[in-house]
C-alpha cells in the first residue's frame, strides 16, 4: 500500500464518521457505557483480589513444641521444616518471646499475665509461612507427623472458608469481565453493522471497479479504531478521577480495618490502559466482522 493510499483511507474513515454522525454517536456511546461498567467492575474485582491476597498472606502455621524439647532439638526441627517444599520461612519463637507477644495481643488485659515470667506455661513455638497460602493444610499435616511437635494451629476451618470465598470471588469476577467484554463487542458490532448496511451500495461499487478487499476494509478499520478509542477515553477519565478521590477518602478508614485498597498510581493507569486497549480492539473487531459479510461478491 502506498503512503498516499493510507492517507486516503484515514481521511475516508474520518469523513465517514462525520457523515454517519448519529450512528457514530450511538457506537461511541455504547462503547462508553459498556466500558464504564466493565471498568468499575475491573477496579472492584482487582481490589477484591488484592484484599483476598493480603488476607491470605497473613495465614501462618503455629507449631507448638513438646515441653521436653531443648534448644538444639528445636533448631533441628526448624531445619527439617525449612527443608519441606512449599515452606517460605520458619521463625523460632522461644517461650519468653511468646509470652511478650501474647501480652501485646491482649493489650490492657495483658497485665494479668504479669508474674508468669518465672514459671512460663507456654511452650516454645515455630511460626511457619508457606510459599502458597493454599498449601497451608498439606504443610501442616506433614509437620504434624514430626517428632517433638505437640500441637499445631492454623485455624483450619477459617482458612478453608477463606480460600473458598476468595476463589469464588475470583471466578465470579472473571466470568463477569469476560461476559461484559463480549456484550460490548456485540453491541458495537451491531451498531457498526447498521452503518455498513447503509453503505452496502458503496462497497458493491468499490468491488465492481476492482477494489481489493483490503482497500475496502481500511477505512472501516480506521473508523472502528477511532470509535473504540473515543468510546474508551470517557470512561477512563471518569474512572481515573473517581478512583483518585475514592482512594484518598477511603484509604485511611479501610486500612484501619486491615483492608488495603490498591493505590491510584499505577493501578488506575494500568486499568485505563487495558480499557483503551479493549476499546480499540472491540471497535476494530466489530467493524471488521460487520464488513466481512459484504465483501463476498
Amino acid at each position, binding site marked *: 500500500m502506498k503512503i498516499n*493510499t493510507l492517507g486516503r483511507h484515514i481521511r475516508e474513515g474520518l469523513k465517514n464518521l462525520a457523515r454517519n454522525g448519529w450512528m457514530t454517536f450511538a457506537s461511541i456511546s455504547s462503547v462508553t457505557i459498556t466500558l464504564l461498567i466493565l471498568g468499575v467492575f475491573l477496579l472492584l474485582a482487582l481490589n477484591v483480589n488484592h484484599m483476598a491476597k493480603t488476607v491470605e498472606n497473613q495465614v501462618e502455621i503455629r507449631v507448638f513444641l513438646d515441653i521436653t524439647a531443648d534448644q538444639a532439638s528445636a533448631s533441628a526441627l526448624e531445619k527439617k521444616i525449612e527443608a519441606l517444599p512449599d515452606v517460605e520461612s520458619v521463625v523460632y519463637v522461644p517461650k519468653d518471646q511468646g509470652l511478650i507477644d501474647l501480652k501485646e495481643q491482649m493489650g490492657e488485659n495483658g497485665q494479668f499475665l504479669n508474674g508468669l515470667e518465672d514459671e512460663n506455661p507456654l511452650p516454645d513455638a515455630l511460626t511457619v509461612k508457606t510459599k502458597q497460602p493454599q498449601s497451608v493444610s498439606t504443610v501442616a499435616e506433614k509437620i504434624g507427623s514430626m517428632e517433638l511437635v505437640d500441637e499445631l494451629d492454623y485455624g483450619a476451618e477459617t482458612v478453608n472458608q477463606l480460600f473458598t470465598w476468595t476463589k469464588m470471588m475470583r471466578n465470579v469476577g472473571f466470568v463477569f469481565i469476560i461476559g461484559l467484554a463480549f456484550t460490548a463487542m456485540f453491541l458495537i458490532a451491531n451498531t457498526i453493522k447498521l452503518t455498513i448496511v447503509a453503505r452496502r451500495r458503496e462497497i458493491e461499487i468499490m468491488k465492481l471497479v476492482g477494489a481489493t478487499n483490503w*482497500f475496502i476494509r481500511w477505512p472501516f478499520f480506521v473508523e472502528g479504531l477511532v470509535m473504540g478509542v473515543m468510546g474508551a477515553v470517557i470512561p477512563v477519565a471518569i474512572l481515573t478521577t473517581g478512583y483518585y478521590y475514592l482512594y484518598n477518602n477511603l484509604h485511611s478508614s479501610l486500612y484501619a480495618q486491615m483492608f488495603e485498597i490498591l493505590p491510584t498510581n499505577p493501578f488506575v493507569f494500568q486499568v485505563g490502559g487495558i480499557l483503551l486497549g479493549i476499546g480499540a480492539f472491540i471497535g476494530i473487531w466489530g467493524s471488521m466482522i460487520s464488513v466481512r459479510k459484504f465483501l463476498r461478491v
Partner: protein
Amino acid sequence: MIEMYDVWKTYPNGTNALKGINVKINKGDFVFVVGPSGAGKSTFIKLMYREEKPTKGQIFLNSFNVSRIKERQIPAVRRSIGVIFQDFKLLPNLTVFENVAFAMEVIESNKKEIKPRVMEVLGLVKLKHKAKMLPSELSGGEQQRIALARAIVNNPGIIIADEPTGNLDPDTSWEIMKLFDEINLSGTTVVMATHNREIVNSMRRRVIAIEAGEIARDEQRGEYGYED
C-alpha cells in the same frame, strides 16, 4: 479476447441458466446480447465480470482464466474491464468528479494523474461543466454518461454493459449509444445486453441471441429478431 468453452451455469435452486455456451468475442468487437427475459442474458454478462462462477466450462477474458481464478484475483479481472448497469450505480454522496476519480483511487493511481485524466473523460462524455454536481442533480442520461466515464477512465480493453439504456428515453438512449460507438471505434471491445430493438436493428452489429440458456443465433450485422 473473450472466449467461453462449454459453459454451464446451474443456480443453487436448480435453475439451469446456461447450458453449454461456446462463444468467441474478438478484440474490438461490438456485440449485442439479446433474448427473452430469463433466458440467461444476465447470467452470461455476470460470468464475464466474475459476479457469478460457471458450474462447468472455461471462460477466458484478457489473460485471465475467469472460471479458475482465486477470490483475491477478482479485483485484477475487474480492473481490466469496465462495467455499466441499467441503474448507473453512482455513489450519491460523491460529486461527478469524485465518482469518476473513485475508480482511479481504487487502483491506487498517482494523485497527479487523477485530475487531468478525470477531466479528460468527462470531456469525452461532454459533462466537464457538471463536475462539481451531485448525481441527484443530473438527468438519467447524464448519470449514465458519468457511469460510462467511470468505466473507461482506467482504459479497460473491454466494456460490459447490462441494459444501459433500460431506464432512458429513446433520444437519450441514442446519445449513450453514440458514446459506446465512439469508445468501440477507439478499439475497446463492447458487450451489451439489451432489450432495445430499435437500436440493435439500426446499428447492425454482431448479435448473439440467448434462448433457454443456449445460443440460438450468432450473426455479424444481425437484427433484434423479437417482437418485444
